């Protein structure tokens, strides 16, 4: 890898925002392939993900990494021409939603971001999502995994009802369901009938990788 490419990966992974953005923009102006630049971002995010899992990085770093990626993406994406654009192969689709009655989305958004960066296609239905919408979206998008989020304790029942409704449909019978947020623990997993719960964004990524047979 060229010196600048290595430097870009290091700047992003080490949370040097100004340097990362400046270098990425400079490289794009010099004619670097924008797809290459985006690949460097992904590479950097793998390092960020590892540091998150080893408790070196926490939410603030994920948040800043997201900011760096969106600034670089905004500049790089319009430069991608049809000829160099290859639709990246996704590992599979994850449908994600905050269950009905609950308006919280910080955790859900971070999980969405980390899944996308790890190669999953995410359909994010937003907050306070009615059961019927989740069920019909499963039919439309045929996800391999459904992620249900909730911060409040009222979400336990919303999750339980949503999962029962999903299981009652043909499409939803075999879909893997993971839950997360606030008070969710093993007891809640059992109560709601979810297949698994995750304590943080990387848990969600690892569950999906595991279920879909993606090498870690």
């Amino acid at each position, binding site marked *: 890898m060229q010196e600048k490419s290595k430097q870009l990966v290091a700047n992003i992974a080490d949370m040097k925002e100004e340097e990362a953005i400046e270098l990425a923009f400079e490289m794009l102006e010099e004619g670097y392939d924008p797809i290459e630049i985006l690949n460097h971002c992904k590479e950097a995010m793998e390092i960020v993900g590892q540091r998150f899992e080893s408790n070196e990085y926490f939410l603030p770093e994920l948040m800043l990494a997201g900011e760096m990626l969106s600034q670089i993406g905004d500049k790089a994406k319009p430069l991608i021409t049809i000829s160099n654009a290859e639709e990246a192969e996704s590992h599979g689709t994850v449908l994600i939603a905050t269950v009905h009655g609950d308006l919280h989305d910080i955790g859900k958004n971070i999980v969405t971001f980390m899944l996308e960066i790890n190669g999953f296609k995410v359909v994010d239905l937003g907050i306070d999502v009615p059961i019927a919408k989740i069920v019909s979206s499963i039919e439309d998008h045929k996800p391999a995994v459904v992620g249900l989020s909730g911060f409040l304790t009222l979400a*336990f029942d919303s999750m339980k009802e949503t999962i029962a409704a999903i299981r009652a449909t043909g499409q939803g019978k075999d879909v893997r369901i993971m839950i997360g947020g606030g008070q969710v623990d093993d007891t809640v997993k059992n109560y709601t009938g979810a297949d698994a719960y995750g304590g943080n964004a990387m848990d969600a990524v690892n569950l999906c990788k595991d279920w879909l047979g993606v090498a870690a």
Partner: protein
Amino acid sequence: MNTDVEKSGSERYQEREQRILDTIELRETDRVPVSFFNTFWAAKYAGMSCEQAMYDYKGLSDAMRRAILELEPDDFVCSHFMLSLGPTMEMIGYKQLQWPGHDGLNPDVSFQYMDREYMAANEYDDFLLDPTGFYLHKYLPRLATAFEPLANLPEYSSVYYTRVVHSLAVYAKPEVREALETMIRAGEEMQQMLSEAFSFIEEMKEKGYPLAWVASGHAPFDVISDYLRGSKGGMLDMFRNKDKLLESLDKLAEFIPKNMISSAKKLPGKIVFIPLHWGLDGFMSPAQFELFFWPSFRKVLITLIDAGFYPCVLWEGDCTSRLEVIKDVPAGKCVYFFERTDVFKAKEVLGDTVCIRGSVPVSLMITGTPDDVRGYCRKLIDVVGKGGGFIMDSGVGIPDEAKPENVRAMFEFTREYSANK
């Protein structure tokens, strides 16, 4: 043997208050105290919707009275201050909360905070130079429709001599006049609510039940991250605006206890409450905690302690990795209320320094059986209650959806089992 029946309300009040105080000061007591802290549970138990609980002041008193008299806690949290805000919020067009029955939210769900950016990153300088001016002209107008015309008010930090007189003209502006009139009406509504709350507290005092805390506040970092910059802004500022963030935290560490102490003086009791949001494990690193969260928060705690108060700190989420750091407070002055922290480890590390409160898992209160609850309480009493310094509660108080039989099990079992040990 129950001698309680012969005791007067004021004797029972003193006995309960002393039990809690002894527990906080780490003296062993006759039994483990158990506190009643809930949001909508009592209202739901009485058959009220969340919406009714936020609008019907007397109805909430009735629901709380029923729960307290049934559960006989050692103290209780007055729910009115947290819940009875519906009418006033509606009058001013308050925007930081969505609440049941309002703005399309189901009448049966809890109110929810709107995590947004209420102060831009480039406004730190305004805030630091003149916080009150910033609040009046920029911040308050963003929080409620009724406050929008306050942006017209004089810049009082630069008004002097005859300018004081000239500046009065703005009060005649129709929009300012209207804002002030709305605020007066909203203030009257709030006084009605407070008078119901105060008379309920007085009634409970006569019946023998002390207040669990008399004021509440927040950690400086949480004020920035929740109420000013929003969670995303708060986190990004650690990298992008580090010095201004640190300076603002120091400033807030001065203001926060001042406000808490002045409201605490209106009620009987010496315990004050501080729920924490962003300092927990997983949300920020130990190094970030020690730089951005703990120093300014510790300053708040020490100021409160020096003024004669006992802070009850609700460490939300899991804070197990912080135990050694947060031990640095004077012994016998604080309650650390844990939600998902390993309380057994907390007892080992903090047992000689703070009183521990909590932490029957919220999931158990909602989905478990009374036997599950009793089993968990037994373990808490045996281990965390050993030698005193422990107050029984669920992880963040009684969750709204807790089964009534589980709540009764927690109160009855704690009283009986810990008294007979």
